[in-house]
């Protein structure tokens, strides 16, 4: 039930009559977002994670992929141990190749987040375009495009990704392509639903009355008003993409060893999980879980506050 309706018809009548010249929309949005402590904490965690990932080359204690910096004697050291000459503390231990796990997580998060953001952004744009066109033109175009979407959605994402990667081979770019193919359909469906609602509103009629071209109407008028539900999907999808990429890397078909992601790290550490050197697998797993949960919490809260009933 909408927040306004929950408070009863009296407040509904009141909201209409009070002039809203005061607060700008952005400030209201920020205030609403801040009302959930869970979301604020998650957002903070996420920003820290993103910041750490972006700054990885500068802030990580060691570049784990620089073979010259590794000392094989430091392999499989537990968390907190120091290296041979005491200059470096392995806060989270080292893995089988003497790589500092903390540094590996930072670099891994970099890859994971990069893959996630790029694939979601591309899927967003492609899916939105398809959905908007389907909604605006209706009829056969709509039916055709939506059948494509349905077909895409009826296959399990992992299966589609596996098949694609088998065909395309390994590589970060190939993984991104596979993720785009798997994700665009969700955006298309949401965009179409939002656009169908907006299409019948009077401001779109006004735009066609003013003889504006269909692509201008779609891009400049309809699309900006469809963004809220798409933003929510993008946020949750980011979590899916990162998790999916982790799965693929865990299975060994994702990113190459030279550019590992969190999933790859988990995969590498898996064999050691039950033999006492748990930290090689455990900490990357925690990092992945924290990132995914934070994104989900932020996305959940966004969905609540961006609900169209609360909009103008």
């Amino acid at each position: 039930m909408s927040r306004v309706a929950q408070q009863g018809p009296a407040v509904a009548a009141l909201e209409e009559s009070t002039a809203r010249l005061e607060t700008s929309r952005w400030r209201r949005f920020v205030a609403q977002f801040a009302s959930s402590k869970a979301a604020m904490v998650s957002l903070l965690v996420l920003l820290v994670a993103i910041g750490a990932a972006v700054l990885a080359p500068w802030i990580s204690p060691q570049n784990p992929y620089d073979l010259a910096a590794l000392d094989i004697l430091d392999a499989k050291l537990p968390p907190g141990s120091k290296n041979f000459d005491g200059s470096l503390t392995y806060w989270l231990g080292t893995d089988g190749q003497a790589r500092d796990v903390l540094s590996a997580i930072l670099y891994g998060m970099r890859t994971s987040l990069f893959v996630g953001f790029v694939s979601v952004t591309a899927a967003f744009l492609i899916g939105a375009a398809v959905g908007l066109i389907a909604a605006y033109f209706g009829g056969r175009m709509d039916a055709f495009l939506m059948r494509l979407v349905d077909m895409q959605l009826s296959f399990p994402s992992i299966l589609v990704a596996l098949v694609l990667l088998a065909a395309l081979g390994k590589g970060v770019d190939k993984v991104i392509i596979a993720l785009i193919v798997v994700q665009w359909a969700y955006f298309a469906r949401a965009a179409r639903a939002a656009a169908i609602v907006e299409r019948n509103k009077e401001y779109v009629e006004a735009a066609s009355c003013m003889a504006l071209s269909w692509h201008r109407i779609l891009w400049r008028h309809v699309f900006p008003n469809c963004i809220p539900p798409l933003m929510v999907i993008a946020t949750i999808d980011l979590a899916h993409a990162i998790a999916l990429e982790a799965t693929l890397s865990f299975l060994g078909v994702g990113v190459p060893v030279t550019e590992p992601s969190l999933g790859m790290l988990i995969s590498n550490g898996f064999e050691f999980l039950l033999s006492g050197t748990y930290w090689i697998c455990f900490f990357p797993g925690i990092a992945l879980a924290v990132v995914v949960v934070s994104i989900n919490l932020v996305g959940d809260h966004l969905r609540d506050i961006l609900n169209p009933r609360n909009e103008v």
Partner: protein
Amino acid sequence: MSAELIMQVQGLRRDYVQPSDFIDFIGRKLRGQGKPPPVQAVMGVDLDIRHGEVLAVVGESGCGKTTLGRMLTGIIPPTAGRVLYKGRDIAGLTGAARREYDLAVQMIFQDPYSSLNPRMRVGDIIGEAPVVHGLVSRAERDEYVCSLLRKVGLDPGYRERYPHQFSGGQRQRVGVARALALKPSIIVCDEAVAALDVSIQAQVLNLFMDLRRDFDLTYVFISHNLGVVSHISDRVAIMYLGRLVELADTEEIFARANHPYTQALLKELPVLSAGKRRFDPISGELPSPANPPSGCAFHPRCPLAMAKCREERPVLQEVAPQHWSACHLNDVSGAAGAAGPGTPVADRHLHNAPQTETA
């Protein structure tokens, strides 16, 4: 106001096909029925719009006035019929001439809350189309928008604001500015003041009249409110279930309404009264366009209905100079109980009983 016709509408029709899903399709096949019949929202309307006039189109839900307005502005294409702009059939227009027509007819919408794009600044809402169509250059745009805002009574400093920061009346003014920006000849007002408070309504109506004078505009004023119509319009067209039932000058219609539906609408018109009113409404529900009554669409509710009204649909006849009405009661054929076209409203009811009285 000259008698020159700026726009003519001939036999305008708009059908909506009822969407049926797959199950429905199979059901129809099994029963041997064809496709579902289309719903006729507008069933053949002829109208002449004179340059500089305010022509009101009045009716209730389902009468098709909104669809008619959208066909005039080109938002919806007609299913059949012709539209002539300045004497030329618009169907034959291409290129610059077609563009001229597209821009010449603009609309002001009913809902001030959904008729402005909530994500665009007001200056952009007004200024976008003129720049796209080359009416003003990008450099001149800002000045143009400011001058338009001033003309509609808004502070030009507000052009950076978003619609939700304005009140309903102010938003309607923005809608007016947006329509004016394209230098139109005809503005279709689709219930443009229905959602406004009385005091704001008065301001906006006055604005319409000032603009008409300043910009030599012609208005097609769609409304259900006969009070507003009586004040602002020169001629009134009454619609019922997709057709015109009466058309005349405003003063003529209010003094000598001919069609029983018009008479009923006039009787319902609320006026300030010191004493209690005796309400005497017509019975029945508005018919659905999907299932229109036979013959005259109004006959199930008409207090003066005859047998003929059920069988044959009446056509518009000129019952007085420049006064058309579609009602069998006007047939000068000696039909029992028929009251003549010029009979005052009150006397019509006296002719209900079968008398041999003729016009």
